[in-house]
């Protein structure tokens, strides 16, 4: 059996006395293009886990492997280059750039010209800008953001900014896309649209790993779900299995009804 696409082995993260993640293992197996969700009540350590997968935090112990290659503790830009890209929980943008400029810039890994050629304005650099600009337009179309292409990001509403964040992630042409709460703050209609777009992304061959609180969306889109609670993994399985798992139900008891939505 070939190496899993993405694997976390007993990943632990401590902040002083606080244990944010303890002994969390997760594997994303072939075939590519699955959607795997990581869920859990607030404070379960989901975002910390994501940061460790994508290089923004170093695990206190444990390993992270991408296609069998050890990427533990590598800086984010190297991990991105190897094919794992993360999007952000907070609305994270460059306020004065247009949506198209964002996505075009995010193609940084896929330019052919060297920086010197860029500075000299060489033909290869100009060719890059045209080619990457076209790719950016295609991605905006996939994300249903074409009408916002020339609008400055500071003028775009929250819902579209989330999609823009995902568009930037796609521009890096990842094999694994980590979506950090992609549906947070979206109304039901926007969520449905975002879920459909996520399915389209996965269908194009990108494996998607997402952290989410919106249970309806998670149940609708996931091929597999992992559940974290107080930093540990307590369950793993198909949406149906997770729905029926008593440990999971117990973990969520004491949360408000709206959050459950199971």
């Amino acid at each position, binding site marked *: 059996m070939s190496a899993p696409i993405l694997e976390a082995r007993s990943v632990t993260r401590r902040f002083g006395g606080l244990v944010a993640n303890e002994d969390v293992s997760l594997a994303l197996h072939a075939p590519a293009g699955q959607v795997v969700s990581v869920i859990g009540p607030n404070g379960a350590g989901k975002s910390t886990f994501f940061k460790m997968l*994508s290089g*923004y935090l170093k695990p206190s112990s444990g390993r992270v492997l991408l296609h069998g290659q050890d990427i533990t503790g590598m*800086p*984010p*830009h190297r991990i*991105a*280059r190897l094919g794992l*890209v*993360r*999007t*952000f929980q907070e609305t*994270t*943008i*460059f*306020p*004065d*750039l247009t949506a198209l*400029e964002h996505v075009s*810039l*995010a*193609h*940084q*890994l896929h*330019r052919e010209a060297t*920086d010197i050629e*860029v*500075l*000299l*304005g060489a033909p290869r*650099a100009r060719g*890059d*800008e045209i080619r990457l600009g076209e790719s950016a337009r295609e991605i905006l179309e996939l994300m249903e953001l074409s009408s916002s292409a020339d*609008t*400055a990001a500071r*003028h775009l509403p929250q819902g579209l900014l989330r999609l823009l964040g995902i568009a*930037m*992630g796609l*521009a*890096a042409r990842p094999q694994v896309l980590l979506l950090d709460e992609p549906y947070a703050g979206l109304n039901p209609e926007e969520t449905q649209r975002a879920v459909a777009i996520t399915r389209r992304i996965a269908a194009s061959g990108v494996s998607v790993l997402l952290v989410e609180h919106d249970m309806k969306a998670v149940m609708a889109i996931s091929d597999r779900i992992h559940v974290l609670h107080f930093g540990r993994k307590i369950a793993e399985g198909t949406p149906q299995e997770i729905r029926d798992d008593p440990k999971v139900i117990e973990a969520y008891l004491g949360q408000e009804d709206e959050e459950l939505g199971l």
Partner: protein
Amino acid sequence: MRTLKTRDAAVAVAMLALLAVAPVAIGGSRYMLSVLMNCAGLSLVAAGVWITFTIGRINICQAGFALIGAYTTAILMARYGVSYWIALPASALVAAALGALIGSFILKLRGIYFSMLTICLTEAIRLAFLNGGDFTQGSRGITGLQQPFATDSALPMYYLAVALLAVGLVVTWRVHDSRVGRIFHAMRLNEALAESFGTDVWRYRVVAFGIACALGGLGGSYFAVFTQSVYPQSFTVEHSIYYMLYCFLGGLDYVSGAMVGAFALTILFELLSRFQQYQTLVYGVMMIAVILLLPNGVMAIRAAARPSRA
């Protein structure tokens, strides 16, 4: 954004054009020509500080790299008899290389910590040259440097200054108005986001700083033959602060900002000489007024009045 760029380019081209024809208007006044040459050199050095601003660092060590450039030229010419036309690019390269080396360590610092370190660095560079023994001739400095033109006229040196300034502007423009410049901008606004799509932030910082120091070295080399001497105190922390002020007062959003600031402040200072002992006081008051009234610099003057659109 488009109007900002057009205004920027228009000002840069206009100023270079004015400088090109200025000697005709000024007549033979060596004093006025030397003021303009001084301004051009200062603009060149300040352009390096401007570039460092675009990666989100307040650079107060540019005087140190100007000094490195000046000494490289002086030592190559006085000690090894090298032609100025080789010493000039060599000075830029030496400053760039040292800048990249030092920058690779210090650029991880931010804000006030980075700035404090650059102040110390300027001093350290001065002390290094002061204590350089025979090689740098210590406090005696290196004097008697020959200007590269065998003529009494100030014009060749004048046009050299303008040419070097043009080079500095073109370099700064290309850095800013390219994918590299947009990456610098992205890194400054949101480093984590830039990293997430593969930007090697550390490397780009070093590249920016290296280019900035190259411009400093180039300017320093010019001043070395302009004043025909170099001393450890030729470029001090005080000069670093002036370069920074030129950028602030000209406008950090405009490539021509460093040049506008340098010319405006230097010429203003000269014009105030009628106030004799109050010259510095009046100068200081005017600077405070400009900072309060035009926080985005002189170049932003009409943009401040007009309401901003999408």
